[in-house]
């Protein structure tokens, strides 16, 4: 099959970018979207042109690197998948496909489709950890954890830090990501001593990075490849509000 791409090309952070047209022929419908971009890049290299820079690593939906805004949607048209899990058979032969980087003040473009997501790392560094050694794997069973909480924590921990929530949110808010990280620790006994401080520090860091404010639209939940739930944001609101309003 053949596709017509409109790809965002931008030399570096300072340069002006623009959408550029590319026609890619001989696309196998069972190629992933990233493999199709690989084909494009082979073509560009053979023509002595600069290949399209894009982030990728695992190519199996677990690392969260493959940030691409495809045809107006974070990670493309499918629900609950990353770009590397999106296959060309989901597009029509001859279709025009827009490919843009994540757009957010807090995620500046590095080059073409790659953005700098280190804002997420700084948020984690502000409190997304348990500050003491919690032991070896077998020690996890010495403190009982409610089954319900274990399940919810596991669901929240599925967040791969891809940033699709920020990209999809009309406000560029990072609350789904931050609330997932706050939640998966808040639901465990080991996360309790630092729970309130963690909420405050991570939210403060999130605000400092220049993400927008959540207005409960739900685009993040709809686009998250790991189907992280909005209930996590409510939990974060609760933790933050009790920490600032009620705690001594």
């Amino acid at each position, binding site marked *: 099959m053949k596709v017509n791409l409109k790809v965002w090309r931008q030399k570096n952070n300072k340069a002006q970018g623009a959408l550029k047209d590319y026609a890619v022929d001989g696309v196998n419908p069972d190629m992933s979207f990233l493999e199709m971009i690989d084909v494009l890049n082979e073509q560009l290299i053979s023509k002595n042109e600069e290949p399209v820079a894009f982030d990728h690593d695992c190519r199996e939906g677990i690392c969260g690197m493959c940030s691409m805004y495809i045809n107006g949607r974070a990670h493309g048209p499918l629900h609950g998948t990353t770009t590397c899990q999106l296959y060309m058979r989901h597009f029509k032969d001859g279709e025009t496909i827009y490919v843009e980087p994540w757009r957010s*003040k807090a995620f500046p473009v590095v080059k073409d489709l790659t953005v700098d997501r280190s804002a997420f790392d700084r948020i984690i560094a502000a409190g997304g950890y348990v500050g003491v050694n919690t032991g070896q794997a077998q020690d996890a069973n010495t403190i009982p954890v409610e089954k319900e909480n274990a399940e919810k924590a596991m669901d929240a921990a599925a967040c791969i830090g891809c940033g699709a929530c920020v990209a999809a949110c009309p406000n560029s808010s990072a609350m789904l990501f931050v609330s997932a990280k706050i939640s998966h620790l808040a639901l465990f006994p080991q996360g309790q001593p630092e729970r309130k401080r963690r909420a405050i520090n991570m939210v403060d860091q999130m605000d400092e990075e220049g993400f927008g*404010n959540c207005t409960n639209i739900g685009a993040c939940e709809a686009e998250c490849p790991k189907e992280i739930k909005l209930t996590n*944001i409510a939990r974060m609101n609760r933790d933050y509000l009790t920490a600032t309003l009620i705690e001594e």
Partner: protein
Amino acid sequence: MAQSALFKSSIGKKFLMGLTGLFLISFLVIHAAINSMIWFNDGGETFKKWGSFMGTNPIIRAMELVLVAGFIIHIVDGLLLWKQNRDARPVKYAYSNPPAKSKWYSRSMGLLGTLLLIFLVIHSAHFWIPNRMQQGLTDWHNEINLYGRMLEVFKNPLVVAIYVFGCISLFWHLLHGFKSAFQSLGVNHTKYNQTIEYAGIAFSVVIPLLFALMPISIYFGLVN
């Protein structure tokens, strides 16, 4: 405990928005209940009685100041959110195709809020402001005839249309705002979510519908 500047923070702004929103919702209930008394068709007797109670009772008048503050906080906070959120994405997408699960009215609260603000100005210029001007600071019982003024104002089909349009904006605003307020306050629980969802829909339909029916029924001469 580490300190955070609550109302400067993103969550603090959500909290304020939700809190003032719920307060304004409680005002809508009282406003709709008292105005519905025009349908008793007793020449405005009951409506006037309760209307002047609201305009002259010192406790209610004190609450009115809180209400004005509630409106101002809700509006200013909304504008702040709108500005910060617009700035958070300096370069827009060339092509955007939002997922169906994120509703257009949730994405358009700034626009709906602006329409409501315009309506609020028109509406208070019709009734509330002239009444308080005549009353002045001390002469509380010297009220204008709100009932008569209502019958007068709603003879104009354009005014009726503006009011109906205002009520439609209110419907969409509430459809997002009602349940959104609970989420912002951290209330999101499988036990209550369905109730909040349905209560929100019912409220968003019933209240604006009641309000819209007032100018309509007056225009068609059903109130006397």
